């Protein structure tokens, strides 16, 4: 798949404690930065934790170069509060892009807790879709959308979401995970229907333990640290513009660093 990678990492102690919705902070090597990645799956018996990431900058591009048997310097977790799992009734799980990775274990546990799961899986194009079967296996119903119509229904995830809400079926909760802009629009879609919408925020982080405040966001007018107070929050309360602006703080530096890295490594990632 172009630019999307799945790693199974041997981390027995993290695997033992991982819960849906939590994340890890990884650092590739001595010169690397610390970045948060959501836990996509884990296997306590095998002692492994699965992470899925998209190549978007130097760190993810460098991470993508690791292969089987390689190791990374640091793998810290499980961090953040687990997703609140309870028997709500019908839950719609909306996954955008790589958001399918973190949503899969959430859907699984919600299903196990007795909820009816309707999943909406969206991507820009067919070649960016993955884990369709995995999500289907824990869903009572699965709707797939692509922006370009190359697979499933053409359009954005918010369209089937809106139809479901309008259909009259009682929906107890929506869980939306994906790019900030997609989560923002999901929250805007559900707001008029008054259906609680949980989102998983991916702010920039350093330590991931509440020590720096880099990840701060505003929820319901209060400053929160995404790494310890979240990453799950009520999407109707999130100040999306602030989140999106704060995610762009280092755009220039990231570009510079990426170009330099590409020049040095001679690769054309």
């Amino acid at each position, binding site marked *: 798949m172009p630019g999307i990678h799945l790693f199974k990492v041997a981390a027995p102690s993290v695997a033992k404690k991982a819960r849906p919705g939590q994340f890890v902070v990884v650092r590739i090597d001595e010169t690397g930065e610390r970045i948060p990645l959501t836990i996509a799956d884990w296997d306590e018996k095998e002692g492994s934790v699965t992470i899925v990431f998209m190549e978007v900058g130097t760190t993810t591009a460098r991470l993508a170069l690791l292969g089987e048997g390689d190791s990374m310097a640091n793998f810290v977790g499980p961090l953040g509060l687990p997703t609140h799992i309870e028997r709500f009734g019908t839950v719609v799980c909306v996954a955008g892009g790589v958001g399918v990775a973190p949503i899969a274990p959430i859907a699984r546990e919600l299903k196990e807790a007795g909820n009816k799961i309707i999943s909406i899986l969206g991507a820009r194009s067919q070649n960016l879709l993955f884990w369709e079967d995995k999500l289907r296996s824990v869903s009572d119903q699965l709707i797939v959308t692509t922006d370009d119509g190359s697979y499933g229904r053409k359009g954005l995830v918010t369209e089937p979401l809106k139809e479901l809400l309008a259909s009259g079926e009682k929906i107890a909760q929506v869980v939306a995970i994906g790019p900030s802009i997609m989560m923002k629009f999901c929250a805007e879609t559900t707001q008029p229907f008054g259906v609680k919408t949980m989102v998983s925020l991916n702010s920039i982080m350093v330590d991931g333990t509440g020590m720096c405040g880099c990840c701060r966001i505003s929820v319901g007018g209060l400053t929160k640290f995404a790494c310890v107070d979240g990453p799950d929050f009520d999407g109707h309360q999130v100040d999306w513009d602030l989140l999106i602006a704060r995610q*762009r703080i280092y755009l220039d530096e990231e570009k510079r660093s990426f170009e330099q890295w590409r020049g040095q490594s001679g690769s054309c990632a």
Partner: protein
Amino acid sequence: MAKLDLNRVPMPRQIPKISGKNFNEVALGYSLEQAQEEASRCILCPRRPCVGGCPVEIDIPGFIQAIRDGDMPEAVRILKNKNALPGICGRVCPQETQCEVVCVLDKKGAPIAIGRLERFVADWERANMPSANSSPVSPRPTGKRVAVVGSGPAGLTAAADLAKLGHSVTIFEALHVAGGVLMYGIPEFRLPEEIVQAEVDYVASLGVKIELDSVVGKLMTIDELLGNGYDAVFLGTGAGLPMFMNIPGENLNGIYSANEFLTRVNLMKAYQFSEYDTPVKVGKRVAVIGGGNVAMDSARCALRLGADEVYIVYRRSEAEMSARREEVENAQEEGIQFKLLTNPKQFLGDEQNQVVGMECYEMELGEPDESGRRRPVVKAGSEFVIEVDVVVVALGTTPNPLIAQTTHGLETTRRGTVVADEEVGKTMKGKVWAGGDIVTGAATVISAMGAGKHAAADINKYLGG
């Protein structure tokens, strides 16, 4: 006896014009001759007030005598007998309010430069005694296991003392390096990483296991540690939660907590960005809010990262600053501008959410408050704007609530600090001790070490030692 020399031997240092542009250590340390000359000023008075002024009761006249005799290994032995981290303490302890302020020479002239001498002995050891020689012989194992949470000065000291008594000690540290604030907070130019690493290595050489990347409360809880074969736990997790001001605009881009700013610069080496991947913003004008050591360190880092103008914005006057006198002077000499009796009202941003200015009040000093310092009050109608590209908020920290939230029976105060016996650090929870900033709130390296020491002794007693 020779005539009293009332002046200290000056310590060689980088000149401020140059030091403000690099991350190398500013103070360069004494040579053997300089150290001996300074040591010879000590009158070896029989009352030894300096020992009482030292929170870990180092035999100060003893190691000074050894320096005079030229018996450096003996000086090392005396120092390390009470202090496992002398290279650190010699650099960052506030000696001017502890051992040096009570020196009898202080009444007539400059007190003995005890901190500089301590640093000299520690540096001499690092250069001249390979670590194997200085590690004591292995004690007989007691078969007891102790978990130490956090690897700052409190945790390192407790771990070292417990290991020397034969207990099997494991430190659990959340970050990817050991050392706590000494590594992520205090900058290279004041406390080189190499020094801290050497002290951490020393602790490891005593047989202490150090588990990095281990966030206690997430990876395992205190109760799980106790259930999994640990006989006692020492909490030395510090005060790592940054305080913000809760004024409008605080979440604008370019506004950092001092913890974030210093972590990016020191721990993640953002000052070598391009070689290292972690970025940090600096811009032309940086305002650092606060008047403590953390503020001075942040300001001096910003200067070294290339800011044209760096301001310390402090709501009281210079006399009330909690930073060490020496650090304030260093900052001033390097060209940091002090905007005193100034307090931010709100931060101003542009349409990109980037901070561009800071609206401030002028303040004046009123009656003393509970801290004994005169309370700053707003001068009505005094608002003015300072243009800034980056702001660092250095207003203090409180303990991270993670441990308290995940540990049954651990009591905390309203300030979030853990309730523990003042003398020995015993908490309200069985088998759990605590010490350092987690108990006192943000304090000093040496007080954290003292707390680690006293707790280690009490844990040893509890374990039947």
